[in-house]
């Protein structure tokens, strides 16, 4: 669309960042011109989020410089960056559902006249802002809670624009959107572009990347692989650059034909608010990988199977017998375990000890089954077996690293001898060493006869671990791939590379 101008809006030079001694960004360069849409792609863990957080002022870089509008800047925090004109739209919205669109958009800098909030002006300006990005149908005085996800995103964007943002970071903006809503976003992005606003666009969906961006920067393992002109590249090439790797990680052997046991779990035409027509079969001894984009229904599937948000239609059988999994408790009693994606929010008891965390489920569900001493002994064994590193088993779990926290959560479930394990992003935010340990453990569980369903956004992990892969899209199972499928195949199913866009 446009050539990079002599003075770029944003220039990152040699950005580096480490966490706890692990280097997650290595000397990354990036230029963004006004009015440009610059896509940043890469697998999970490639360093995209960290880079975006550095630009938006949430993190300070260890090395390198951030130049914004021709000046080197050191942001002291998100507010600092906001004032400078950098807005960020998070995957989770920072909106107050009880307040109106206008109130949300202008929160923190309401227009005032003679010391009073000028509501009319606020609504008018919000209307203008919305109109300027083509949203004329959205009334500025509706409570945000009544809006759909796409409209809430529009509000988020308007909120950023109200601060006169010249640079907008969109982190997976379509993750939560339905198909037709994605169309709205396209229009929006184009109008932002016309206003000379630069956009950093982080996405997994290659269709969007190709539809929208001018240039694409590919990150891998914290390095910038390349920056390409969108017009000069193809999806295939991009995927190769994203995933092209030496097999740096060893995955345990897959299940052989003899390892596969009987069918443990079936779902026929399962559906609820987020899922439609799900058919699934899970055998003892196998690791079934579940791929798909965020919001595609992966987690909803696990949560339905675990009774958190149960299926409202369809039928589930367990070892051939029909079951109703209507609460986590019934699911646990049926021998199902669930390692959640949101470890901090619903996985751990932050202020309780390692031991209490490990004993939680056993105490709650099978209090009568075994003696306390026996159970505690078992938990200690398991904690040792999964190699949790802590100052002691009475240490509060919040002081542990993510990987160790996850191991404690695993120990909690292993204590119940589950027959079916549901893992939702089991290695997210976990260092390499702990990752390998968890992979080994998952495979060992399968080998011992458990049926494992594992959700992962990380393609190598998904491909390396799974005996079979189902890929989800829009609340349905989009397709199934055998072991040995390629990353391209998974991505193609997940992003629906073949679909025609609805106009």
């Amino acid at each position, binding site marked *: 669309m446009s050539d990079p101008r002599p003075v770029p809006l944003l220039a990152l030079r040699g950005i580096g960042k480490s966490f706890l001694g692990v280097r997650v960004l290595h000397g990354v360069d990036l230029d963004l011109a006004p009015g440009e849409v610059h896509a940043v792609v890469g697998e999970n863990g490639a360093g995209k989020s960290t880079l975006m957080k550095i630009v938006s002022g949430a993190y300070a870089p260890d090395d390198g410089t951030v130049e914004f509008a021709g000046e080197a800047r050191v942001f002291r925090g998100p507010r600092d960056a906001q004032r400078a004109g950098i807005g960020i739209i998070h995957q989770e919205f920072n909106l107050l559902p009880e307040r109106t669109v206008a109130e949300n958009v202008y929160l923190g800098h309401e227009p005032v006249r003679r010391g009073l909030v000028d509501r009319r002006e606020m609504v008018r300006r919000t209307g203008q802002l919305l109109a300027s990005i083509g949203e004329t149908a959205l009334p500025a005085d509706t409570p945000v809670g009544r809006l759909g996800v796409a409209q809430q995103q529009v509000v988020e964007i308007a909120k950023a624009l109200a601060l006169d943002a010249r640079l907008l970071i969109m982190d997976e903006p379509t993750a939560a959107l339905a198909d037709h809503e994605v169309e709205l976003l396209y229009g929006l992005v184009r109008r932002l572009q016309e206003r000379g606003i630069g956009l950093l666009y982080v996405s997994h969906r290659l269709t969007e990347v190709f539809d929208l961006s001018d240039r694409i920067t590919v990150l891998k393992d914290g390095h910038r692989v390349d920056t390409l002109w969108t017009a000069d590249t193809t999806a295939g090439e991009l995927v190769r650059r994203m995933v092209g790797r030496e097999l740096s990680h060893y995955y345990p052997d897959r299940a052989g034909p003899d390892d596969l046991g009987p069918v443990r779990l079936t779902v026929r035409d399962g559906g609820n608010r987020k899922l439609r027509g799900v058919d699934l079969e899970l055998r003892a001894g196998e690791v079934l990988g579940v791929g798909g984009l965020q919001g595609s229904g992966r987690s909803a599937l696990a949560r339905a199977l675990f009774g958190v948000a149960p299926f409202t239609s369809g039928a589930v059988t367990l070892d051939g017998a029909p079951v109703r999994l209507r609460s986590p408790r019934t699911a*646990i009693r049926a021998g199902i375990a669930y390692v959640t994606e949101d470890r901090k929010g619903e*996985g751990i008891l932050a202020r309780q000890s390692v*031991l209490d965390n490990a004993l939680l*489920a056993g*105490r709650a*569900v099978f209090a009568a089954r075994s003696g*306390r001493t026996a159970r505690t002994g078992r938990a200690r064994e398991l904690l040792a077996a999964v190699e949790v590193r802590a100052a002691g*088993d*009475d240490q509060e779990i*919040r002081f542990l690293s993510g990987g160790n926290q996850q191991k404690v959560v695993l120990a909690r479930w292993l204590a119940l001898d589950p027959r079916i394990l549901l893992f939702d992003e089991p290695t997210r935010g976990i260092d390499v060493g702990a990752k390998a340990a968890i992979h080994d453990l998952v495979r060992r569980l399968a080998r011992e006869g458990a049926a494992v369903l594992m959700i992962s956004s990380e393609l190598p992990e998904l491909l390396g671990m799974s005996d079979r892969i189902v890929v989800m899209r829009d609340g349905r199972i989009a397709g199934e791939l055998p072991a040995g499928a390629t990353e391209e195949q998974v991505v193609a199913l997940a992003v629906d590379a073949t679909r025609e866009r609805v106009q």
Partner: protein
Amino acid sequence: MRTVQPRPLPMRLLRARPGGILPILAILAVLLVLVALRQPDFLAPPSLMSFLGRSAPVILLAAGQYFVIVSGEFDLSVGSLVTAQVVVAARLIDSDPSRTWPVVALLLVGGALVGLVNGLITTRLRVPSFITTLGMFLILVGAVYLWSDGAPKGGLSEEFRRYGRRAFEDVPVLGRVPYALLVLLVLVALAVLLMRSDFGRTLVAVGDNPRTAELSGVRVWRTRTIAFVLSGLAAAVAAILLGGYSGVSFQAGVGLEFGAITAVVLGGVALGGGRGSVVGAMLGALTLELLFALMNFYGVSGALRSTVQGAIILLAVAVSATRNASRQGET
């Protein structure tokens, strides 16, 4: 860094962590020293025993309140429940010793029932417990006045009063051991065992993070409801002891709910749940009682007492809050 292993028990008890009992022990120790300076004979076994006996109801209420608070809720109804129970007991017993035990049983059932209603309204109807128990407070006070026409009727039997008032006399070394103290010791032991049991740990888990608990198979609503039932039961036992100690009166339970909450917070338990020990809560109650006795010994003017009480609560809580905050900053 090393893999987990249990560390020796004494070390675990003494580690000063948020919610631990060290701070309250320190305050208690200081108060004891002040008592010793002023009134050395107070620490002689017989008077100490009496003091512990008369403090038993308040300590039990603190324990009951602890269960509710550590699970993330509030119980403002316990004071009115105590009043109601004492008045009901007097009217039902009507000075007839043979009715003592049935009425005691009835009080326990009644306390549990009030707790059950509190718990179910809070967990099933999702009314914040502050409001549920505030409403229950008004209902109980109104109902008991209504039922007794504004003046307590009947009377408590000597049998009933014995547990709050009498003691085993002439016990070697200790001098006398009030029945209330024995009841207290038994219930303290039960409370400690309960908190070490699966249920107890689950209760704290619910207060820490109800989502995690729910996803680990805990029936959060049931756990919290049981906490309210325990609080109701504790109030019933407190009512039996308090009625025994001082006889029937509408004043029996006035203000005890705030006292119990204060004691619990003073004992290092976090409002909002998930942190603190039942021993700390009970020590908090003991500390408050000792503070009141101390003010009697030092002759602090009756009217100024609430000021002293308020200042000490604010200081103690502020200190632990800032300590806590600075620790959180480390992570």
